[in-house]
């Protein structure tokens, strides 16, 4: 396996409680499969999403940040 193929990005997801977080739950109910290298933090609204959170996530070493709401 080449080095590039082995690269697995680590993704931090900030999901709005009322829509995207619910959709992530529904993905589970529907047994949709996706890679495990994504970690979800539930926020009360994407309005809560501070740029600081994104910077801090990158500083901690994640490769991608997904904000959805």
């Amino acid at each position, binding site marked *: 396996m080449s080095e590039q193929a082995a690269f697995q990005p*680590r993704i*931090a997801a900030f999901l709005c*409680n009322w829509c995207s*977080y*619910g959709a*992530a*739950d*529904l*993905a*589970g*109910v*529907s*047994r*949709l*499969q*996706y*890679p*495990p*290298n994504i*970690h*979800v*933090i*539930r*926020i*009360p*609204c994407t*309005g*809560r*999403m*501070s*740029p*600081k*959170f994104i910077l*801090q*996530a990158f500083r*901690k*070493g*994640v490769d991608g940040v997904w904000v959805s709401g």
Partner: protein
Amino acid sequence: MEGDFTVKVVSHPRYVDMAKCIACGACSEKCPKKVPSEYNERLDKRKAIYVRYAQAVPLKYGIDKDNCIFFAKGKCKACEKHCPTGAVNYEDQEVRRDIKVGSIIASAGFKPFDPSIYLQYSYSKFANVVTALEFERILAASGPWMGHMVRPSDEKEPKKIAWLQCVGSREVNACDHPYCSAVCCMYAIKEAALAKEHAHDGLDAAIFYMDMRTFGKDFEKYYEKAKGKGVRFVRSRIHTITEVADKSLQIEYVTENGVAMTEEFDMVVLSHGLEIAKETVELAQRLGIDLMPSNFVKSGSFTPVASSRPGVYVCGALAGPKDIPLSVVEASAAACAAAGKLSGARGTLVSEPEIPKALDVKGDAPRVGVFVCSCGINIAGVVDVKAVVEYAKTLPNVAYVENNLFTCSQDTQDKMAQVIKDQGLNRIVVAACTPRTHEPLFQETLQSAGLNKYLFDMANIRNQDSWVHTGEPEQATEKAKDLVRMAVAKASLLQPLNEVQLSVMPAAMVIGGGISGMNAALELARQGFTTHLVERDAELGGNARLLRITAKGEEVAPYLKELTERVKSESNIVLHLSTAIKNVDGFVGNFKTTLAGPGGEEVVEHGAAVIAIGAAERRPTEYLYGEDSRVKTHLELDSGLMSGAIDPKKTNSVVFVQCVGSREPERPYCSKVCCTHSVESALHFKEHNPDCQVTVLYRDMRTFGERELLYKEARSKGVLFVRYGVDHKPRVAKAGDGLTVTVRDHILDRDLLIDADLVVLASAIVSHKDESLAQMFKVPLDEDGWFLEAHQKLRPVDFATDGVFMAGLAHYPKPIEEAVAQAQAAVSRAVTVLSRKEMWLPGTVAFIDQKKCVGCGVCWTVCPYQAIAADDKGLAVVNEALCKGCGTCVASCRSGAPNLRGFTTQDVMAQIEAML
């Protein structure tokens, strides 16, 4: 009888114990029997033990006995064997119960029309002819192709799709459905627009229609937007579909100027209408309620949710074809009507749980308890829960960890409460399913153990871990550990939060004394609440004073007289005539409104408000209006007919001009009621003077729902309907003693000249654009000046601001029955506030550290709930009664002064820290 019904109810066996089923789906996975899925319109398969769809409430499985192998052959029992909770019960029996109720609401809905009977459309024969509902499922992520838009014959993406409107609607020959189904134009546009978004390399979407009926709020804009996106609209009714070699479909049609065309499409979608199912007709017979010839339940315009039988109410498509917003309005209206006479019994069956006083844990070091759920095998089948337990024990602040087969079961809850006390735990983490469904349950357990319910967090290791990483148990286990670590990190920082208690003033204010406002006030009064009815005019009635009849033919004047008298004699109503609103202070449950009336200023306290300020008829500037007295608006026509000033017998020719000021760039909406009003007026002329020449000049006839029957009757009685294009508007000119109306006939492409004694303009309905009232109540207006609801589909009479509701034309132009239904709905919603003695506001609200605040005002500008204001020092303060805890203020502040309880910056940062 009304107020005392005994209803015999049969609950069919589902062969699954609802109390034991945890909806893990193991039964369905193992069930060997596949059955076409009703939910996906039989385009894919489900099992014989199943839930109908993923969002089902309650989310519990059931066995379809007719298709189950065990019930047919006596063996199999795969579901029973694999059920981790022993929920399957083949012995389940039907249960018959007598339920005593005071009122009944019928909301049995509609059945989509089955187009198989149209031989010329070959729906059952051609694979790529689908119904609109099938197409809806094809587009859905939970549909048969996971949201990939493909056609059924070869599962390839279509490049060209045609929608055919009015399949099973406005159709007498094939199916005896003379009515318009009211929703199909909008859903076809929606499907076409969505299909274009789904297409990978472009899609040619064409909608074949007779009249485009986009009459609802913002519908016309949606239609225009779809045109802008390239959806083609072709005015032609298709008579035949033929299949060609690759199972594509050929249709023939005639363009507006009479040219015959042949076009091939990859798929054809039939926009099928709404009808009432045979079983529903039988149910209506058992309920003893009258139906219309079309089988929709009969109701009156002034009592839109009352059936013919006292005490039995009706809502939704069962009472006539309608869309979601109006169905939701009617549902609340039916609840209001049903509760009206029962208001004395409100709350008599409620028992309050006893909650022990919460321990004070402030300043105590965190002692986190972690409960890791196996959820049968739902989590444990993928995640190594024992490893997660061992790992959790190593985390800082964790004092206790245990694993449960089902953490949510009642016995575990009792045990958890005991463990919290025995171990002295002061923060709890449950690693299980989702907080969206289970957080309230666990929070109750915390409360029963004497802990503040906000000292709780969940790690979602089922829905967002074991269920979605089934094939990767090791990584799923690692992720479960990560999620538990994140939850523990956040939980360690959580602080007990207070829920503020507010008293509720059990009085209401209704603003506007038209039909909507009077109905709202009467219903509120009937439910036992003092109601202040505020009207700026010296008399009640609003626009209805000038209206002649409803679409159903009821006379408005006698009703209005009776309604006004009832309002005046109702002891719970305080009438404020010739009165304006000066100021509004306070919030839900506790408004203080200053009224300015003839007797000076007065402050009124109320817990809720209904805004029903109506709208106005626009004064036209075109078609000689104002220059020639024979050019009149609709309200002027009605007044003239009622007073006798206009006599149909003496009128030889009348021309109605539609869309005067509506559907124009400066007013890009349809006024909804004018087509029907013109048709019913046209019929009035024909009825009193059959020789009168009546002509209606229109762009699209929008006689939606059962109003279509009036349109049909008008045509059969000789009313002429001439369509005009927006590029060729009619012209009205004086000619000798009379008027001449010139209109371009689109087929002949030549002008028609019509002599008229009377020209009636369907002038637009315009909003009052009352920005000051909107600001006082902290509620928004849309760009056309209509009050903007909290959610167009699901909360059609609510505002985002609690305690304020709307009804009638203030929301959007609408006929009387919809205005009355909306008034009743607003009351229903208002009573959810007024019937409470006190309210508890959630603790997860924003707060301001004033030491950091510089008073720049960004937070109160961005707050969508207007919950932040400046105090006397110019610094921000949060009104907790208005705050919804969205946290926008926190994200917007440059100096970090606001923070959000339960989701503080520190909480979220701790989760980020703990993530990797």
